[in-house]
């Protein structure tokens, strides 16, 4: 598309709110305020390489990975059902699926707290069945549950949009040629839905790896993730330099994972985000 004056507001917007702040983060991450004024340093990055911070990084990636896999396993069949042929039911299903997203994300996470508590709904139900109460809240599993619950729509919706665009004739042709349903899925549906899967994975992995609210509320502050670390540096310690360095590392992780993902999405056949 030819550039015209319509695009300038967006360019200015991006400059002010994306490009310049990014430069500032980069600037903070490589400088240090000393008595002699600002000096260039890589100390903050070196500090990040200490085992304790690497451990936090790996935990973040590990939990985000588990969350992404679970979202894919749960979300793909869901997307197939949504994209199915039963039109009457389909609209209601999509509607029901999207409704929770109208509610604030924090509220939904708080709601999980009251469900999982020791005296919460689930444990009340268990004790009513005369079963021993479970320690559900403030565990690693609770954190993963919160992530999966909150980010599942980001997996389902892109896959759904790709699946619903697949030409039905391709599937019919395959069936005519004798392919059973497993082969149809393996050879036709899944490969065609790959762009949706990839954007789904990126859209789930990114917020999962950077979240700090879910781990604080459902993990009870016991499972420090990279997002918590950054928040702590900016809000409590006031060490903007180290916080910026962690943010840069985080961005690098996301860029790398996006780079890896985009290698599998060479064709860019719609549905993909990038």
């Amino acid at each position, binding site marked *: 598309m030819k550039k015209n004056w319509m695009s300038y507001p967006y360019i200015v917007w991006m400059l002010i709110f994306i490009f310049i702040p990014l430069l500032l983060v980069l600037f903070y991450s490589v400088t240090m305020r000393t008595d002699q004024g600002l000096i260039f340093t890589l100390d903050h990055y070196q500090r990040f390489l200490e085992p304790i*911070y690497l451990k936090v990084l790996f935990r973040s990636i590990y939990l985000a990975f588990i969350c992404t896999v679970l979202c894919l396993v749960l979300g793909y069949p869901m997307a197939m059902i949504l994209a199915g042929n039963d039109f009457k039911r389909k609209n209601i299903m999509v509607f029901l699926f999207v409704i929770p997203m109208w509610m604030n994300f924090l509220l939904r996470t708080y709601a999980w707290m009251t469900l999982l508590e020791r005296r919460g709904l689930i444990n009340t139900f268990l004790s009513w069945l005369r079963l021993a109460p479970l320690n559900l809240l403030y565990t690693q599993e609770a954190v993963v549950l919160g992530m999966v619950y909150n980010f599942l729509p980001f997996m389902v919706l892109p896959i759904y949009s790709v699946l619903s665009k697949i030409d039905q004739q391709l599937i019919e042709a395959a069936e005519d040629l004798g392919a059973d349903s497993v082969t149809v899925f393996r050879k036709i549906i899944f490969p065609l839905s790959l762009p949706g899967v990839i954007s789904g994975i990126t859209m789930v992995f990114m917020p999962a790896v950077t979240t700090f609210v879910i781990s604080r509320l459902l993990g009870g502050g016991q499972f420090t993730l990279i997002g918590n670390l950054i928040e702590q540096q900016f809000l409590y*310690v*006031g060490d903007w330099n180290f916080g910026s360095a962690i943010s840069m590392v985080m961005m690098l992780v996301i860029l790398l994972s996006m780079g890896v993902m985009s290698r599998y999405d060479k064709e860019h056949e719609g549905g993909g985000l990038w």
Partner: protein
Amino acid sequence: MKKSRRFLLLVLLGISILVLTSCGKEERIVLNVYNWGDYIDESVIKTFEKQFKIKVNYDTFSTNEDMYVKIKSGGGNYDVLFPSDYAVKRMINEGMLHKLDFDNIPNYQYIEDRFKNLDYDPENEYSIPYMWGTVGILYNQTMVSKPVTSWRILWDEEYKKQILMLDSQRDSIGITLKMLGYSMNTKNYDQLEAAKQALIKQKPLVLAYVGDDVKDKMISGEAALAVVWSGDAVFMMRENSDLRFALPEEGTNLWFDAMVIPSTSKHKAEAEKFINFLCEPEIAFKNTDYIGYSTPHSEAKKRLDPELLNDKAAYPSDEELANSEIFKDLSSFMKDYDRIWTEVKAD
């Protein structure tokens, strides 16, 4: 062509609205107040606005560090702040505060003498105390059979996964140092290392490290023991009669929140009016009654419900506070506390 003219008209309209409204504002001074969340009786602000014809823009923060970082980075343009002791000290050291003109604050006379000239502001030039309190253990007496007299009970295997710790570096490390018999303001690496090891050892027993949600959890009986601030304890005990508050014998943190004026304020005289207003006996009483923390104001204290005055949580005796300490500003040593806290929580 037509479209662009309409656009131009809109822009002009927008600009004129902006100009006109900003003119309107000039007549009335706006005082920007930055306080802790839920830390004032809001009706007091309305009374002030009516009485002095000054508009108050009221804003809240949740930790000293939060507030400090915002002021330091030049944000907000506030006229009155409510930092705690060590934050006041830090801001004084860094030249971030105006000296107060006490001729404009005659109600300072009502502040009890023992709350004047404290360590963080030894000459009492910059700050006027607003509220004070302690940190202690809140416990549910139906779940805790042992006597709660020491911080050590938070390390007792019997209460595994029933203990709530504060998700606040200085408080949690501070009480651990106290338990070990060290100062809360230590800069000794060996002592800090010992505190770190103790906290790591305690971690399997801890249900969660929480902030304000401690109130919900303790009131609903989710946990047996929690580290809480005294004013919150008063509130929670009102809501759940099984809860009790104890000040451990090793001593605890004694803290003060004070009113100060940042040096960036352009309405110092009005800010002093506001501070003086908050020190008026009736107003100070109203706030104390609403907030539940302890007041340094002699007249406000006289008007309080005697039951609250006898409440050891709100007004502990001098003996109970004997071993307690006030936080000192650690300035750049804070980074080491942060590292310890990260190692505890990330382990």
